[in-house]
């Protein structure tokens, strides 16, 4: 990909998304980020949109602007996600709705709208899964299920978008020390890490390493795959 490569990343105000926005701006990509609130990140290669990723009209409006200003999209990174640890029997319906809205509906909308702007010259979609799905983590039923839906979506997208030379893959991170796990007790995290083959927290660079692999030009024959970190 050239320096004119246009990359859209969701959830760039903080955490992994913020890291990825900075990382790819530094490498010369034109990064379009978004979050519900304003971002304090500024860079000559960065443009921020305030959108709710699960709001279809807002997402369509964002891509309408991208099309008008930049013409196309090369890479879509669906990072935005929320989690809520709770026992299934104590999980309110509203929590389920919110998690599926942001994680699954948001990913779906950005896949659909970005693929429309990739179909002429091909592109790459990278979605975010989680080790909570294959590990069937207690307390994370809804989060894990929303990400399982993303895995399925990714595999079917890979087939439906292949004729347009668009690949779709997912990275499945282990816990990374971000706000997402801030409220999870330390002993719970230790128990989780003990189920990984490589027992440490994930680092931001572990994630960008997998994203780098999916988006490199030589990876145009890699699609429909989910790469889990930590040896899960």
């Amino acid at each position, binding site marked *: 990909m050239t320096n004119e490569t246009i990359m859209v990343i969701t959830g760039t105000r903080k955490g992994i998304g913020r890291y990825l926005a900075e990382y790819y701006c530094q490498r010369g990509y034109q990064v379009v980020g978004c979050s519900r609130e304003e971002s304090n990140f500024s860079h000559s290669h960065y443009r921020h949109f305030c959108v709710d990723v699960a709001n279809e009209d807002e997402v*369509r409006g964002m891509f309408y602007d991208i*099309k008008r200003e930049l013409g196309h999209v090369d890479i879509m990174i669906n990072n935005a996600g929320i989690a809520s640890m709770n026992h299934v029997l104590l999980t309110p319906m509203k929590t389920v709705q919110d998690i599926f809205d942001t994680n699954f509906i948001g990913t779906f909308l950005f896949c659909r709208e970005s693929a429309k702007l990739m179909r002429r010259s091909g592109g790459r979609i990278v979605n975010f899964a989680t080790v909570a799905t294959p590990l069937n983590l207690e307390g994370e039923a809804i989060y894990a299920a929303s990400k399982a839906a993303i895995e399925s979506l990714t595999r079917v997208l890979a087939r439906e978008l292949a004729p347009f030379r668009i690949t779709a893959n997912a990275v499945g991170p282990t816990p990374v020390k971000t706000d997402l796990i801030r409220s999870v007790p330390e002993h719970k995290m230790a128990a989780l890490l003990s189920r990984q083959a490589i027992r440490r927290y994930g680092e931001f660079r572990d994630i960008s390493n997998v994203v780098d692999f999916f988006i490199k030009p030589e990876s145009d024959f890699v699609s429909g795959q989910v790469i889990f970190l930590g040896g899960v």
Partner: protein
Amino acid sequence: MDAGNDKRREALNAIYFAMDQINAERSSDKLLKKEETTHLFGIGANMDSLELVTLVLAVESRVSNQLGVAVTLADEKAMSQRNSPFLTVKTLADYVVTKIEESSRD
């Protein structure tokens, strides 16, 4: 010419523009005829599902470029209609006009 006719002409232009993209990938003996009676989808259709996707996206893109309005043709309403708006060039053109009018009202 009144505004309604202008919209319909834009809609037809967008559809024919999209058909040009599909025809570019077809052999000369299988070209889609740029006529209102051409069947697009359903029984007697002249396109496969991937071509229909390409057509719909190309029409959306053309309408947005020419008229500055974002329309989504493949919405819930279109998918649930007893008579699909994607049956023929004519039904699609009529549908595109209604979507343009809806977007203009928003």
